[in-house]
């Protein structure tokens, strides 16, 4: 089992992040899209039904271009295994030896995958598509049974964003999900949780409940104040391995509801500009520690309203602010590529809080939002939903974005 590494020797240089090979064909990039959602998908031929790997432009059986990416049974057996001990590749040099397997899937094709330490030739495995430090899909053969040993395997850890042994910053400790999030992260093995508190001149009723969690401390942080972000980054920027940006200001209503832009500006200050300030404060430090051993910096999490993808009339400005944060989040993902820091988007349905009070059920319990965040981190997903409404709207958006957006304006029968 992995333990927290000893304190760093200040005379030794921190390992500089280098990217694993990151080029993929356009066809293969579709596998990354699925991997980001935690799905294992392969090309299925619409003409002859063949399942193929690696991805191509045409079916290798019948040359049809009617190829469709479908979730595929990940079960199979390891039929061959190779151990690489020496490599000229800068990224893999630090990981030697690396075990590579050929897995014959029950679904038909055989494929090349990284190997979990507990499985080898002849073993039954399940293949998972994971996002690597280059931001691309990589296949990983895992034991059929899940458990902590699976999480602690160095290859699994390299290809996930597990909070275990890592220090996490929850940006807004006053958000409804913050307490459940801190608890969930610590239960998942996080080494420490920093809890941001804005407006320290206001009461904070949950203080004792956070303290009771143990490895949890409060830090002064207000994303609307550049100095506050910079001051905190100067203090703990080198210790934050997972940053969860949950700072939002939400007010219901559409475009015509108010006579001013005061609330709209606050939504932008907290969501959009807040995210930029956080990135300016913490981004570089996290990037620099992206391959810094067992507790390397590993994830930047943006919690977004599902309106970021499918604008919600009940909360038009939150949708607009979320859409802007989403665009920035994609940009940050591109900028973080090669460092080992993954950028994770959690799309949340309407949270069961005071600012969604008038909306009908089902609403998202803050605890369920927290669970979705922890699950995405443990499984190394970059795109995940929280709650039924978000799951439904996300699926509709994936199928046909224009239709989903039209539907959300009302006037479409169920």
């Amino acid at each position, binding site marked *: 089992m992995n333990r927290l590494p000893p304190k760093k020797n200040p005379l030794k240089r921190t390992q500089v992040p280098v990217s694993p090979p990151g080029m993929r064909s356009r066809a293969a990039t579709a596998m990354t899209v699925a991997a980001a959602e935690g799905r294992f998908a392969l090309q299925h031929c619409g003409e002859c039904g063949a399942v193929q790997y690696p991805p191509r432009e045409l079916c290798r059986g019948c040359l049809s271009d009617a190829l469709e990416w479908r979730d595929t049974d990940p079960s199979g057996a390891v039929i061959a295994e190779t151990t690489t001990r020496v490599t000229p590749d800068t990224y893999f040099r630090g990981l030697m030896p690396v075990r590579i397997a050929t897995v014959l899937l029950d679904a038909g094709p055989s494929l090349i995958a990284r190997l979990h330490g507990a499985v080898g030739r002849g073993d039954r495995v399940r293949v998972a598509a994971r996002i690597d430090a280059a931001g691309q899909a990589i296949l990983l053969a895992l034991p059929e049974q899940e458990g902590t040993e699976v999480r602690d395997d160095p290859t699994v850890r390299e290809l996930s964003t597990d909070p275990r042994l890592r220090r996490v910053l929850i940006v807004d400790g006053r958000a409804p999900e913050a307490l459940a999030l801190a608890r969930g992260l610590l239960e998942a093995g996080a080494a420490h949780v920093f809890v941001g508190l804005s*407006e320290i*001149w*206001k*009461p904070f009723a949950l203080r004792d409940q956070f303290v009771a969690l143990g490895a949890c401390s409060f830090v002064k942080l*207000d994303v609307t*104040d*550049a100095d506050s972000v910079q001051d905190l980054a100067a203090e703990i920027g080198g210790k934050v391995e997972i940053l969860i940006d949950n700072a939002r200001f939400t*007010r219901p209503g559409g475009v015509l509801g108010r006579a001013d832009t005061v*609330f709209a500006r*606050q939504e932008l200050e907290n969501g959009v500009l807040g995210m930029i300030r956080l990135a300016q404060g913490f981004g570089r430090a996290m990037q620099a520690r992206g391959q810094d051993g067992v507790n390397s910096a590993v994830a930047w999490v943006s919690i977004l309203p599902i309106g970021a993808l499918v604008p919600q009339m009940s909360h038009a400005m939150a949708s607009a602010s979320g859409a802007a944060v989403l665009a920035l989040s994609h940009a940050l993902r591109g900028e973080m590529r090669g460092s080992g820091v993954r950028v994770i988007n959690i799309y949340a349905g309407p949270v069961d809080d005071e600012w969604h009070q008038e909306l009908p059920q089902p609403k998202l319990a803050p605890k369920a939002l927290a669970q979705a965040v922890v699950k995405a981190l443990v499984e190394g997903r970059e795109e995940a939903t929280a709650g039924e409404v978000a799951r439904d709207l996300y699926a509709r958006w994936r199928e046909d974005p224009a239709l989903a957006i039209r539907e959300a304006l009302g006037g479409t029968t169920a």
Partner: protein
Amino acid sequence: MSTLSDLAQALASGRVQVVDLTHTLSADFPVMVLPPEMGQCAPFRKVEVSAYDHRGPAWRWNEITMNEHTGTHFDAPSHWITGKDVPNGTVDSIPVSAFVGPVVVIDFSAEAAADEDALLGVEHIEAWEERHGPVPAGAWVFLRTDWSRRKGAAYLNLREDGAHSPGPSAEAMRYLVNVRGIRGFGTETIGTDAGQGGHLDPPYPAHAILHGAGRYGLQCMCNLDQLPPTGAIICAAPLKIENGSGSPLRVLALVERDRGRK
């Protein structure tokens, strides 16, 4: 010698001292909190534009944002609905002579220490007047509570039923405005009214009565303990914001040293 040259000499010699009654404008300074569905008072924020670097090599400057009622600030009559039709009720139209004038200080710190909801009553003013004479017409009246020494959450002192801090009663405000004809009323707390002032009659009597009569407010001040009960002069000029309802400002007091500190 003219009055001003006398003053210049007194300032140079230290016989007249300048006391700063202003808190530093910082992101952490509390602002008035209203029910969250209502529009809020924006706290002070500062963004660096350049600081002797590639964004501007030889100079440093910041962009600042805030509400008209953030930090140590001035309330013009048009801040309140009772004062919306008062002539010259906005900061840009108030005669500048109103910004410099005498101030008297009522020490209410013992009462505020004993009861955080303490209300200044007419009896307190009358007791003060017995010792110092009538509150002069056209003077500022400052309520010293030592509230400015409170830090963090203790300043607004928010609880489930709202803020708790001292302030004036409606009767005291009517007395000061209608009987004594004061120029304005100033406090160390977040507003000119008590924390629970919304439950008085009329609600927020300092705001309602002062501004309805075309008088001014000053709040979030500090160092009132350095002012004498009578005899000081303050300079409190808000920014000249077009049609503005108030403004953060620097409040300075001129205090004659030989009159003794409190």
